[in-house]
């Protein structure tokens, strides 16, 4: 106790240094924890963005697909109408040129009896 009374500066110095060290360590720990929290938030954002990228891509693919199918049906419908018109024209053409009918029949292997 006597020694303590005479050398209290030592003890104070030691306690102060220890206290400062602890404070410094705590501050560093808090800074690291904050950084880790920030990284966790960033991770959540990345996962969300990745999900959005996937959803957007699938949505675009779906739209593209439905447009392609629609276009294919439209093209087929147009071609079918053209073919029907062509059929009517061909019929008229054959009636206008009966010799063509003979040629067509010969292509089926049906020959004219002489």
């Amino acid at each position, binding site marked *: 106790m006597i*020694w303590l009374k005479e*050398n209290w500066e*030592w003890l104070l110095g*030691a306690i102060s*240094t*220890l206290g400062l*060290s602890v404070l410094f*360590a705590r501050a*560093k*720990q808090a800074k*690291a924890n904050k*950084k*880790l929290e920030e*990284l966790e938030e*960033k*991770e959540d954002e*990345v*996962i969300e*963005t*990745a*999900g959005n*990228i*996937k959803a*957007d*891509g*699938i949505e*675009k*693919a*779906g739209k*593209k*697909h439905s447009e*392609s*199918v629609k*276009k*294919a*049906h439209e*093209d*087929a419908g147009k*071609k*079918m109408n053209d*073919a*029907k018109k*062509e*059929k*009517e024209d*061909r*019929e008229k053409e*054959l*009636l206008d040129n*009966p010799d063509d*009918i*003979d040629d*067509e*029949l010969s292509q*089926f*292997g*049906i*020959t*004219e*009896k002489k």
Partner: protein
Amino acid sequence: MILFYLLSSALAEPQFEKLKAGEQASFDGRLLNDEAIATMISQCEFDVSECEIKNDLECSIKIADKQYELDVLQAKYDSLDYKHTNLMEIKEEELKVLRAQSKPQRAMWAFFGGFAIGTGASVATVYALNKTME
């Protein structure tokens, strides 16, 4: 041979004869007017076109289906690529922080230990000197 002969004689060659109204046909069969034949021929050609159109449509739909599958896979790949690249960066950073945090902790303990031992030694020395002086 006999059977072949009988069959070939039974099946007559397909042929046609041009007739005017009132004329007599030289063989049995069906008499069609030009309109009927023209319809048959044009229908036959139309059937070929129709088949091609349907085939093209089927092909186009199949291609569109495959393209859709490809686009979906591309979207999934892009998403995973983005996720992987960014998560790797974040994890690298996290590792840096954790490593930096774990290393000085050991050094800090060494510092505290050293500080405590040093303080103890100093106090003991001063105490011993005081005792000796007395």
